[in-house]
């Protein structure tokens, strides 16, 4: 690896976006979870739901704040490090990002204040509306970002003239060929990752025999979510696989470690891919597996990596291993879901030690899956920044390599301290303190007392 401006800028972007993606993913999952719980509270009026809302709202607010500031760094980096790309693709991507800010980001950020600090300032309906709008905001936000990224993978609706992309159809830019499966893949990944964290924290309380009512409700709900969403995610992941094979066969080849074009390609369980010799070592594989997965045909044809010059191949080992780790994490979540079903049937969900312990250990798997999934997608896109239209090497700014060294060092230091150390320290602190005792919680809304009164009268 040569540490030039391009490579260092790639490392810097990968580093910052890997930290960043964790926060919005968690925000998407938590916001949705909070909307469901607050809805349940308003409907049933049971204090346990309010208790759940208040606790996870703390984690949510904290996480959202991290997402805002780490996202700001992303926005600026397009200009500082990827000036060529910004100049050429700005009329397309800059527009999508502007739409993200206008239609989504402002809504999240604006109503977040009401959602977190407005409990005593506004009525229950308005508060719930704020919560729902935050959910709409985060969901739309993900849509625009996925639209932008999918356009880089499968560009459409634009032509390159005089070194600048001119849009011919905004519809085709936004709803490009890969957007729909990739968007839902990401959304569900965010729900799953958050559900796994909620399950892990609840398992911790159950194991410590603390906050039991709270923990049971959250644990049950999170595991049910995983049980429903994980099979769905397998299906959508499969759709993404088909889409990638259609549009980016070389990425598929890197994911599967297929060097030579072949029919009935095997699924490789383990191998050490060697890019120099263009072959795998220590290969263990299932015959016909890769063809079956990527084409849904026993003897489907997979294009090999050696069909393109080495300068057009991505870093195979990174793509190959990332993809396998992601799938493995998915299977772990599926196994958790199956085990939870079995224990639930036997009414042992809340007191099976080994299961609670494994849930705690599994807390990060959803996020590992998200990160490795993105590594697969983005490293697999190389050496292109806009697939087959613009090379990454032409995207980079004309800046000296020393400056990128300095900025990278600065970023690693600051991110390492604030996200790596303090974010976790305070998250653990929130978890250690735990939710408030049910009776201690004060009625939240300005006129909540009347609201409860009205409910009681209804019941009479």
């Amino acid at each position: 690896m040569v540490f030039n401006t391009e490579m260092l800028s790639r490392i810097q972007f990968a580093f910052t976006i890997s930290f960043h993606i964790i926060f919005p993913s968690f925000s998407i999952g938590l916001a949705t979870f909070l909307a469901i719980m607050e809805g349940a509270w308003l409907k049933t009026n049971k204090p346990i739901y309010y208790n759940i809302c208040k606790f996870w709202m703390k984690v949510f607010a904290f996480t959202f704040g991290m997402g805002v500031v780490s996202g700001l760094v992303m926005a600026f980096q397009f200009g500082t490090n990827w000036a060529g790309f910004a100049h050429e693709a700005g009329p397309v991507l800059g527009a999508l990002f502007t739409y993200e800010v206008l239609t989504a980001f402002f809504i999240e950020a604006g109503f977040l204040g009401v959602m977190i600090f407005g409990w005593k300032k506004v009525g229950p309906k308005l508060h719930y509306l704020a919560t729902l709008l935050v959910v709409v905001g985060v969901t739309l936000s993900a849509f625009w970002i996925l639209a932008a990224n999918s356009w880089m993978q499968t560009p459409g609706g634009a032509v390159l003239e005089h070194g600048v992309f001119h849009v011919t159809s905004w519809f085709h830019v936004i709803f490009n060929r890969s957007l729909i499966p990739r968007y839902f893949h990401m959304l569900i990944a965010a729900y799953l990752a958050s559900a796994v964290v909620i399950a892990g924290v609840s398992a911790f309380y159950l194991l410590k025999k603390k906050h039991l009512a709270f923990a049971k409700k959250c644990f049950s709900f999170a595991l049910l979510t995983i049980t429903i969403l994980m099979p769905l995610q397998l299906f959508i992941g499969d759709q993404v696989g088909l889409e990638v094979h259609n549009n980016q066969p070389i990425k598929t080849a890197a994911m599967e470690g297929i060097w030579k074009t072949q029919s009935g390609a095997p699924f490789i369980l383990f191998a050490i891919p060697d890019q120099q010799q263009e072959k795998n070592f220590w290969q263990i594989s299932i015959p016909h597996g890769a063809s079956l997965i990527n084409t849904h045909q026993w003897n489907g044809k997979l294009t090999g990596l050696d069909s393109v010059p080495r300068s057009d191949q991505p870093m195979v080992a990174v793509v190959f291993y990332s993809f396998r780790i992601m799938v493995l994490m998915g299977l772990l979540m599926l196994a958790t879901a199956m085990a939870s079903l079995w224990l639930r049937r036997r009414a042992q969900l809340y007191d099976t030690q080994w299961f609670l312990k494994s849930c705690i250990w599994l807390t990060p798997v959803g996020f590992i899956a998200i990160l490795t999934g993105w590594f697969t997608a983005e490293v697999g896109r190389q050496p292109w920044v806009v697939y087959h239209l613009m090379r990454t090497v032409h995207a980079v700014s004309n800046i000296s390599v020393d400056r990128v060294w300095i900025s990278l060092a600065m970023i690693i230091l600051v991110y390492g301290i604030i996200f790596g150390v303090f974010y976790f320290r305070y998250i653990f602190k929130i978890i250690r303190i735990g939710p408030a005792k049910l009776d201690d919680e004060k009625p939240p809304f300005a006129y909540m007392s009347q609201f409860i009164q009205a409910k009681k009268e209804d019941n009479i």
Partner: protein
Amino acid sequence: MALLPIIWAMIIAFAIVMYVILDGYTLGVGMLLPLLSHDQRSIATTVLLPTWDGNQTWLVLGTASLYGAFPLAFSSILPIFYLPIFVLLMALLLRGVIFEFRLKSEKRGQRNWDIIFAIASLVVALCQGLVLGDFIQGFQQTNVTQISFGHFFITPFSLTCAIGLVVGYTLLGSTRLILKTTGELQNIMYRYARTAIILVMVGMAAVSIWTPFIDPHVFHRWFTGHHWMYLMSLPLLTAVAVCVLLYSLWKRFDATPYWASIGVFLCGYIGFIISIFPFIIPYKVTIWQAAAPANTLSFLLVGAAIMLPILLVYTGYSYHIFKGKVTSATEDY
């Protein structure tokens, strides 16, 4: 068609001024924190909390719009300011997260976070001021996308701008706290606001007199032709805003000092725009030369025309919800 770039330049200018006004007072409050007692610091940060994320968003809007509407300017200006931008970003990042960390800490931890918050706020204000100064001083162009400084990043002029912006933000912060607090904290803020406005007057006068001599374009804009008489109304307006501010501080009005400070800021900002218009990369590339294809600008305008009024209404609404004096630190969270 030539109208679209002007509209987008106005939208970006608007996003930037919204950011400067809304995040400006949070930067100012940040820099004032070390001068306050622990309880006062808790109240001061509670004032900032509910609208914090919304305020930051205007900066993101300005950046994203510059990217979409003027890709040439975005891609040539940002690499020039490479290191200052990363220093600025890291300071903004620290501010954002410390804000969250503070709420989770014990008293002693809070003190440390407050100090870092104050330093980060100062760094943000200084960086922004330096960039502003360099921006006014202009750039050199070697070819279409290659722009460079004709000077060092830190010059006497950019340093003057930076100090001016620091005292300006302090003025906004102190008058905002006058509006939002009572008692001892408010008393202290009246004192700081009085000091700040004197320094702001000196800073603004220095920058205003200096700027026309930076580049012939600016001099020409202000002092030749027939329109100079209209332009002279701007210094007059500034003087009126300053007088209102001084009077309201003297009379200890609650809200007027804050609005008058915003008035002073707006006058300075309008002066800046008059000086550099129509350039987006002073004094080399105009907004028309840097604009994205018309198709992109009109597509963007549809979204902006629908969303910006809505954004303004609910930004106003969320400020409305949290209006009134803050007398104790937040318990939510």
